[in-house]
């Protein structure tokens, strides 16, 4: 993804300018339009005339002027419609001091809090975050989530409408509310990352861009809230998971399970950074779910071979994670870790306890995990049937092909092709 320094700079400054404007005027929708116009002017002028001394101040000033115009027009219209304006009038706004980096950094964070407000649906939270903080166009967000642009446009405008209607305050939350809001932000970033990473099949540069964007935003939050161990944990988790991406897909787009991946192709620099982050975060404060998952990912990444994986340690970490949340997928992963550290029968016994969980009823993961453990235990017929069942439940082509290939391999004869 080749980007010029000006584009990089604008992506960094865009949420700061938008945050500054929304804080002063409180009108998310119009402020976004104004910042958009200022960004276009900058992208046009800066490469030609050079970047101004205070690029953030330049953007805020140009966007503010434009916003003033837009609000005047809107105000006239609203007065005509006899509606009470909620936003602050431009005349009441005083120019801030030029040098105020800390506050502008906060603006980005408050903008994230606003986009990830619990009053919005997760789909709207994600769309607004990518649009307002990530600086992606509606078309780009739409393509990343494989929905028509018109759908994404509606989703974004519904989100903005909701912000306007509910009069959500653009102010830094405090106390326990701040922790809740930060948790919502982290969840949204996690969802963006997962959306990019879960795409296992076919070409899809945009999906890879999505993991990169999630990591970029997580870095941003980490820079704004460096003291929070869960923020650090999430960034580490993303880096450690994404580090395996080059080895995860075979030459023909097929899924390669972790045990069979060429570890030489994992990104060593990302692993080193992730390990350092999580090692620094774990001893500090309360250990949360992102830190635990990052610690598990680090143990996988640091094992020189699949056989050398520290499964006992991974099992212990999953046990702590299980104690935090009632999540059947965590329970499933825990059972697999138990199988790897204490033998397949122990893992299969735990999986049996999950058989009646309605949350896993249509999920291919339970039969897939059983199939692996049965295969490990030498029960080839049962394993084969379970692989088939998992493939039938899956709707992902790469996953289906992987599971069917495992089933074929157990049939005793080589698969017809490959």
């Amino acid at each position: 993804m080749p980007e010029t320094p000006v584009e990089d700079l604008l992506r960094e400054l865009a949420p700061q300018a938008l945050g500054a404007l929304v804080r002063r005027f409180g009108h998310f929708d119009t402020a976004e339009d104004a910042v958009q116009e200022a960004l276009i002017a900058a992208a046009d002028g800066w490469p030609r005339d050079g970047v101004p001394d205070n690029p953030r101040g330049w953007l805020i000033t140009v966007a503010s002027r434009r916003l003033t115009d837009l609000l005047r027009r809107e105000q006239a219209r609203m007065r005509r419609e006899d509606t009470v304006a909620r936003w602050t009038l431009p005349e009441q706004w005083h120019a801030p001091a030029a040098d105020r980096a800390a506050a502008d950094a906060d603006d980005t964070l408050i903008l994230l809090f606003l986009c990830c407000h619990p009053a919005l649906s997760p789909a709207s939270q994600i769309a607004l975050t990518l649009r307002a903080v990530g600086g992606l166009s509606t078309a780009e967000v739409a393509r990343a989530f494989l929905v028509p642009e018109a759908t994404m446009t509606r989703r974004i405008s519904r989100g903005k409408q909701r912000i306007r209607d509910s009069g959500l305050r653009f102010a830094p939350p405090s106390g326990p509310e701040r922790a809740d809001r930060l948790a919502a932000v982290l969840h949204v970033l996690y969802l963006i990352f997962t959306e990019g990473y879960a795409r296992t099949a076919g070409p899809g540069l945009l999906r890879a861009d999505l993991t990169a964007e999630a990591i970029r935003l997580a870095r941003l939050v980490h820079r704004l809230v460096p003291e929070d161990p869960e923020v650090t944990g999430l960034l580490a988790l993303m880096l450690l998971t994404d580090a395996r991406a080059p080895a995860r897909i075979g030459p023909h787009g097929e899924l390669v399970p972790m045990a069979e991946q060429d570890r030489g192709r994992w990104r060593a620099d990302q692993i080193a950074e992730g390990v350092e982050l999580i090692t620094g975060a774990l001893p500090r404060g309360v250990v949360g779910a992102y830190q635990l998952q990052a610690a598990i990912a680090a143990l996988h990444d640091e094992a020189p071979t699949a056989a050398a994986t520290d499964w006992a340690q991974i099992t212990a970490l999953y046990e702590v994670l299980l104690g935090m949340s009632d999540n059947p997928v965590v329970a499933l992963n825990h059972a697999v870790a138990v199988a790897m550290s204490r033998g397949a029968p122990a893992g299969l016994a735990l999986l049996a306890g999950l058989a009646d969980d309605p949350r896993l009823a249509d999920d291919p993961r339970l039969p897939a995990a059983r199939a692996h453990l049965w295969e490990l235990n030498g029960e080839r017929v049962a394993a084969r049937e379970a692989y088939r069942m998992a493939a039938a439940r899956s709707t992902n082509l790469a996953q289906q092909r992987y599971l069917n290939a495992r089933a074929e391999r157990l049939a005793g004869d080589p698969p017809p092709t490959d």
Partner: protein
Amino acid sequence: MILLYGSQQDYDVLSGRATDRPAMSAEQIAAMHQHMETFHQALAESGELVDARGLSEPVHARRVQVRQGAPVITDGPYPETQEVLAGYTIVECASFDRATEIAAGLVDPDAPGGYVDVRPVLDGVEDLAG
């Protein structure tokens, strides 16, 4: 709207499940993905692409009927060889002939008897008169 059809058996061949037809190889799958990607990318660049989607296989389908006022929901199974809608591509282009030309690119030349259907979306039917 260009409609693409497939049977459960076609999906099985794609997913590597053993049937009386050989499963598709990884290379064939990769080539097919590459073709679809390039094809739709070109339509996106010419501004003619509205939407393109693939549908999951018939075994994941649910049929909803209403009997004596109560909804009755059944899963498959569907006959293996019965063709169902497998995907669609919606284009907005200059003429019905242009849409037909685009549709030809979605027919697999290696599948004997393969076909797609092109049907105007009703909104635009008056555009076709001229």
